[in-house]
């Protein structure tokens, strides 16, 4: 009997010990374990330095990346880049989830594509390599080489932690054919004009109804709406949500009233974004606010059915354009050799030759000043004038709040937006609730 009791007790103690060690590593991924991981990785690959690259853009974009990585590997015999699609890189997408798990376990990739709004949280985790001095001494990626505005999302507390990769901005898409029919000469420059135009453009009824406008029920254009309306998302010390104050709500209120009056259409549900783009393509709406990244899809979808164009987002009190897309960051965990190889890869990718190739293949923004003078890119702009708008908008780029808790702020905001547009909840009260929830997450 004694023996049996002791056995159970030993077992229980053992389990407790395991809990302590298991949680210990879970709670504090410290250097020791990860360094050995890095060392063994380096030792295993004797000749070329192998670096892993996680990204989160699928379909043809994924193929483009794989092709370019292959080209890099062929021209750089000392380095082998293994690039893997990890699911979506967007807010809460699989790639972000995996990065979180990998960081908690001290086993991240060498390079990762990071969504611009997630930059503060990853930078604050202390896991990203500070690229400031590397950039300043680089001939390719010197900060002054980049297009003004495009670096806003790559900084955290004054240091650079990433280099722009697949960047985009929201722009106003408008159906020129419908505009001409309604005798409107140019796209709206302000929200007052947009509201008036939307009324004129709305026609028909039932399933043949054409709506003047369609807002995108998403926190990305919401950032623009808050800042351009004259409000701010968070207080300057980043401790409090301020997006429920009246100026921050003005554009949302205009949008909601357009919806309520029947001049604007809304798409909801899990595919809301695609559905909105589709609405524009099928001519069901005359204007929408969509990513410049959708231009390729729109070009292909519209074909010769009608004329369309892009314009600067309409102004509220001012124009503040949020950054969009992703940047490339290097993880500290990598061995010095891997870090060096990763930096070589990033500089190669952002050099004008490659970045122009990437931009023209995908429709993402060029990142370097030199890209704009590149003959290939100029020819591309000739053919696709829509992208000019996006490049012009970069001048109005406004950084998103630098709070590591920002993603936890966007969550209640997205819910609130769905409430406002899907269910017609009152703007001010709904945003107040969201701000309270955000405050909790900030505190």
């Amino acid at each position, binding site marked *: 009997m004694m023996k049996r009791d002791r056995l159970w007790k030993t077992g229980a103690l053992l389990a407790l010990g395991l809990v302590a060690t*298991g949680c210990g590593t879970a*709670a504090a991924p410290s250097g020791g374990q990860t360094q050995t991981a890095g060392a063994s990785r380096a030792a295993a690959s004797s000749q070329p330095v192998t670096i892993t690259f996680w990204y989160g853009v699928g379909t043809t974009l994924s193929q483009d990346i794989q092709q370019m990585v292959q080209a890099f590997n062929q021209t750089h015999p000392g380095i082998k880049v293994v690039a893997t699609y990890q699911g979506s890189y967007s807010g809460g997408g699989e790639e972000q989830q995996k990065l979180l798990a990998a960081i908690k376990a001290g086993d991240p990739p060498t390079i990762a594509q990071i969504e611009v709004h997630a930059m503060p949280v990853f930078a604050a985790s202390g896991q990203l390599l500070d690229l400031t001095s590397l950039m300043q001494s680089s001939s390719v990626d010197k900060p002054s080489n980049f297009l003004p505005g495009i670096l806003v999302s790559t900084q955290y507390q004054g240091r650079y932690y990433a280099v722009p990769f697949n960047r985009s901005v929201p722009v106003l898409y408008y159906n020129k054919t419908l505009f001409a029919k309604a005798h409107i000469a140019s796209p709206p420059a302000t929200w007052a004009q947009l509201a008036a135009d939307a009324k004129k453009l709305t026609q028909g009824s039932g399933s043949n109804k054409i709506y003047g406008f369609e807002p995108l029920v998403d926190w990305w254009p919401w950032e623009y709406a808050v800042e351009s309306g004259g409000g701010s998302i968070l207080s300057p010390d980043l401790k409090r949500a301020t997006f429920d104050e009246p100026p921050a709500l003005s554009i949302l209120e205009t949008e909601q009233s357009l919806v309520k009056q029947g001049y604007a259409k809304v798409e909801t*549900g*899990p595919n*809301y974004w695609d559905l909105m783009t589709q609405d524009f393509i099928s001519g069901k709406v005359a204007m929408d606010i969509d990513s410049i990244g959708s231009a390729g899809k729109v070009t292909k979808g519209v074909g010769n059915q009608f004329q369309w164009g892009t314009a600067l987002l309409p102004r509220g009190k001012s124009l503040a354009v949020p950054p969009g897309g992703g940047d490339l960051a290097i993880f500290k965990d990598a061995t010095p050799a891997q870090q060096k190889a990763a930096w070589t890869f990033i500089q190669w990718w952002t050099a004008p030759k490659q970045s122009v190739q990437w931009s023209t293949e995908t429709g993402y923004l060029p990142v370097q000043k030199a890209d704009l003078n590149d003959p290939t890119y100029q020819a591309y702009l000739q053919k696709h004038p829509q992208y000019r708008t996006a490049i012009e908008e970069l001048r109005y780029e406004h950084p998103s709040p630098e709070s590591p808790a920002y993603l936890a702020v966007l969550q209640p905001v997205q819910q609130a937006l769905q409430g406002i547009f*899907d269910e017609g909840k009152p703007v001010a009260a709904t945003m107040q609730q969201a701000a309270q929830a955000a405050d*909790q997450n900030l505190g």
Partner: protein
Amino acid sequence: MAKAAEAVIAQVEAKRSTRRRRMSLQMTGVAMMAPALFFLMAFVFVPMGCAVYLSLYQSTLYTPKPVFAGLANYAHLFSAPDFWQAAANTVWLAVGMMALSLPAALLLAVLLNQRIRGRAVFRAAIFGPYVIPLVSSGLIFSLLFATDGGPVNLALQHLGLSPVNWLGQARTALLSVLILTAWQFTGYYAIIFLAGLQSVPSSLVEACQVDGGGRWQVFRHVTLRALGPSLFFAVVICLIQTFQTFDQVYVMTGGGPDGATTTFAYYIFEKGFQAFNIGESSAASVVLILVLACLSYLQMRASRRWVVEES
């Protein structure tokens, strides 16, 4: 169950009458439990302990050193409206399953228990959805409920009604998830009930009929009573399954719109993986584990009372 068994074995051992033998049997037993226990320890119980530990710390991706926070994470959780919304959604799903799926399953079981032709085919068709991956059925039902071109809306339009944005509206999104879940699991519950029905001793039925009992009385006095354990088992499993609801939400709605389809398990995932708040996510995990442990305990207690002890 152990008492009787122990007595029997004790007798056998008394015959052999060596203490040694008993000890070695004990050791063999422990050794035989060891592999399974090791894996369950390492991958279920230790992580559960970790969840308790992590729930007491303020730990996010951007606080590299977790700070002890006592019960603050729990306080936070219980004061957050979205936690209660997730709990309410889960309970709503559970109630919905019990109101919709279980009675349907019971009816199907009674029908399948008749002497009819093609019984095996019906049984297979009704149980079939259970083996389909939830990711797949989530995908299929996203198509069925699609606003444009989805067959549900096509049918509505055919009847002259206007199409509904099933997954995009708070009122209908959770209902859609419920319908998928009922489709997936009703056949499973039907089989459970069928097994219960088939365990009804025919002697009892005959006795009741001899006593002049009609169809309904036989059902009420014999069948339903015999079904007790299966009914209880199904209710508990149903609760557990709804508390675990994740895949279908992940595929169909991502917890939206406006948090309308966020379930308990999805909430844990969202807190931890999308808001990067490990502490609060762990606190929610602990609450879920406690709820499930209570359900398990109930199930064990009840099965002891209802099920005839193995002899």
